[in-house]
């Protein structure tokens, strides 16, 4: 589903991501974790087509994000780390805009949006301007927007920043159910507890390079720490 091949991204002389290769299959939840500035967000933005790779490529459903971006992006639902919106649009207008951009018909939008709004109980505020939403509510709208067009791959950057605990649990359930139904989730996060219970594999990134990859059990074996949590493993490998 998602195949990152020898990906390198430079900003001027600074190397953000260096020769990164990752493959994620349908039904998997892959968590990319690492310290601040390790290149997680850059990787996600490259996969979403917001950055152009310096070298290498990313394939989504076998379509190159650089050579066939429209086809690759049709499969993506992207949830950014900072949900910047057009302030003077209502949440409902924003969801319709996203739907139009991804080719969702008006009838489908009318059917789906009410159901999506129920997930986080947003019906009461959805006709207000986004500029007046709290950060958490903006995050919820961006999560719902990613599900509007039935994506096959979710690119999720720091999914629960600003969410209340109840909504965080719902979001986790949402991602988990999505993967169980055959979807792929590629998530970057610092909130290790959020992904620990649902993640299929973990990749650890440091200074733009993948230093370790595997299931949590495999990482425990490599670290020689049976029963260790993801946080302990993270500290072990990134020191």
């Amino acid at each position, binding site marked *: 589903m998602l195949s990152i091949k020898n990906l390198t991204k430079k900003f001027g002389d600074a190397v953000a991501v260096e020769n990164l290769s990752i493959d994620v299959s349908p039904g998997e939840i892959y968590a990319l974790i690492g310290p601040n500035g390790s290149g997680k967000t850059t990787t996600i933005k490259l996969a979403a087509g*917001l950055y152009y790779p310096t070298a290498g490529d990313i394939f989504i459903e076998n379509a190159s994000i650089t050579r066939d971006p429209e086809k690759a992006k049709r499969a993506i639902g992207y949830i950014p780390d*900072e949900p*910047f919106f057009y302030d003077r649009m209502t949440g409902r207008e924003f969801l319709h805009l996203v739907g139009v*951009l991804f080719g969702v018909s008006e009838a489908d939008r009318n059917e789906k949006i*009410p159901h999506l709004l129920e997930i986080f109980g947003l019906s009461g505020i959805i006709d207000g301007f986004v500029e007046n939403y709290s950060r958490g509510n903006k995050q919820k709208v961006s999560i719902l927007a990613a599900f509007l067009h039935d994506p096959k791959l979710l690119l999720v950057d720091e999914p629960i920043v600003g969410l209340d605990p109840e909504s965080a649990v719902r979001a986790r359930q949402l991602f988990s159910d999505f993967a169980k139904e055959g979807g792929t989730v590629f998530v970057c996060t610092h909130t290790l507890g959020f992904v620990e219970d649902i993640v299929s594999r973990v990749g650890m990134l440091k200074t733009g390079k993948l230093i370790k990859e595997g299931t949590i059990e495999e990482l425990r074996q490599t670290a020689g720490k049976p029963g260790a949590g993801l946080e302990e493993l993270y500290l072990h490998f990134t020191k």
Partner: protein
Amino acid sequence: MNIIFYILSQKLSRVGKILRGKKLAPKIVFAAFVLIFFLIGIAEFFGFLRAFRFLSGQEFFGPPLTLFVLEQFLLFVFVLFILSASISGFFIYFRSSDIPLLLSAPVGARTIFSLKFAEMTAISSWPLILLGIPLVLAIGMGTKAGVPFFIFAFFALAAFLFFSSALASLVIFFAGYFFKCVPKFLSVCASAAVLLGGGYGLVQVMVPRSATLSAIFEAANLESSVATTVFIEHMFFWWPSHWVALLIFSASFDMERAFFILSGLIVFAAVFSMLAFFVGSAAYPFLLLILRESIFYARGRMRGSRDDTRTRAGVRSFPKIFFHPAGAIVEKDILLFIRNYQELAKSGFILFLLFIYLAAIASTGDRIGRFVEAEGVVLALHLIAISYFVTTLSLQFVFPSVSLEGRGSWIVWSSPVNRKYVYIAKYFFWSALLFFVMEASMLFTAPFVGLSGFAAGVASVFLLLLVLIIVSVSLAFGTLFPDFHESNVDRLATSAGGLMTTFTSLALGLFMGIMFFLVAGGSGNGAPWFLFSAVTAIVLIASSLYAGMKRIQQLEVV
């Protein structure tokens, strides 16, 4: 008081930071701005100087004509100042980004009011600097006035500035209260009616009627060696700028009268400013809080659990006009613009200037006769003037349209919409809209100036080419030099890319005006010139579109 000076000095220190900074581009932009202001001021100064020198040699008609010119231009400065201050002042008083910090700090409402008053006065003083000062310097030097004239003129302009700012503040506070009390539609209609009525009235005063010319040139008393200025004084009596004009006029030959007027002017400006200060600072805390409240629901009410795109009346929510994804992005741009009152007000100001210009052309044609004999020259100048308005509107809408996607552009950029289509949609939409507005403007003035069908037709073709070129250049520069972190249109328009767009567009406007004259106004065969213009336009449009579309494919939101 210390707080006001401290905050103002902090804001002014940005200029120092630019000059001391390592980046070259902001320094070039700053230097270009200073140079442009200086060159415009110098050009106006020498124009006025030549006129006043000539008039000072006209013993009989010189004085009333000098006063008429002074009255006209100072009235224009006054109107521009009030309009500019009312628009920028509303957002400075009630919506500026530092207000939450000031409100949460132990700073009194009077202090905040005084600070905002000073900011508004400084920002809106550009008509006085750009037009008023060259005018006053020119009359002083043209009439060989001494140092006292310039001292009097300085105090007169200072009083004018304070009075105008105080008046603008009262207008803003009244308008703020009015807008909050009446429905939005009524507010917009009332504002438009005031602007159109005021603009029409201004044109009626500024464009000389035959009665005005009679008042100047028909001597009332043949015994007198100088024509009377009484008719001119009566004509402008009720405008606040009249007393400043009369003072400056008198100071060039009658200091005693000038001193008398200056004393009255200073007392009046001081009393009026104090009144505005007390009324303003008393009303400010109340108005500030109610006007800072956002409009939470898009249509001013909660629509509860309405779950589809259609209201009960069958009206779509979004998109309403365009259904192609690229069209929906354009519709989003329009929606965001309509809901951005600051940009809406600024665009209203530009359209107001366009209206004044068109009304002045129409009135002039109507009053002093048709231009058939010189229609080529008139239309070429008209085309150049219209290219200025196309450039201004392009800077407002087209140039920033890619940058204004801003940090929210992840929505569009991560979607499966080819960015080329987004680019093309923006291009054709703005080209069509600007051409429609400008063609309507040209057709509006055509009957008043008695243009032939042929001239009007050729002018329309040139206007189409002009709009297509300027929009393509604006969009290309906006895409080549985007700033996704800036949401202020003025700052985007005054960036290096904005300046390049301005110069290029104005130069192309001038070029097309000259080409039009060679086609429609020259005595020879215009066909080769037309062909040359069309080919040049096509090459420019195609190369701009190519550069812009290539760049937009690789844009990154860093």
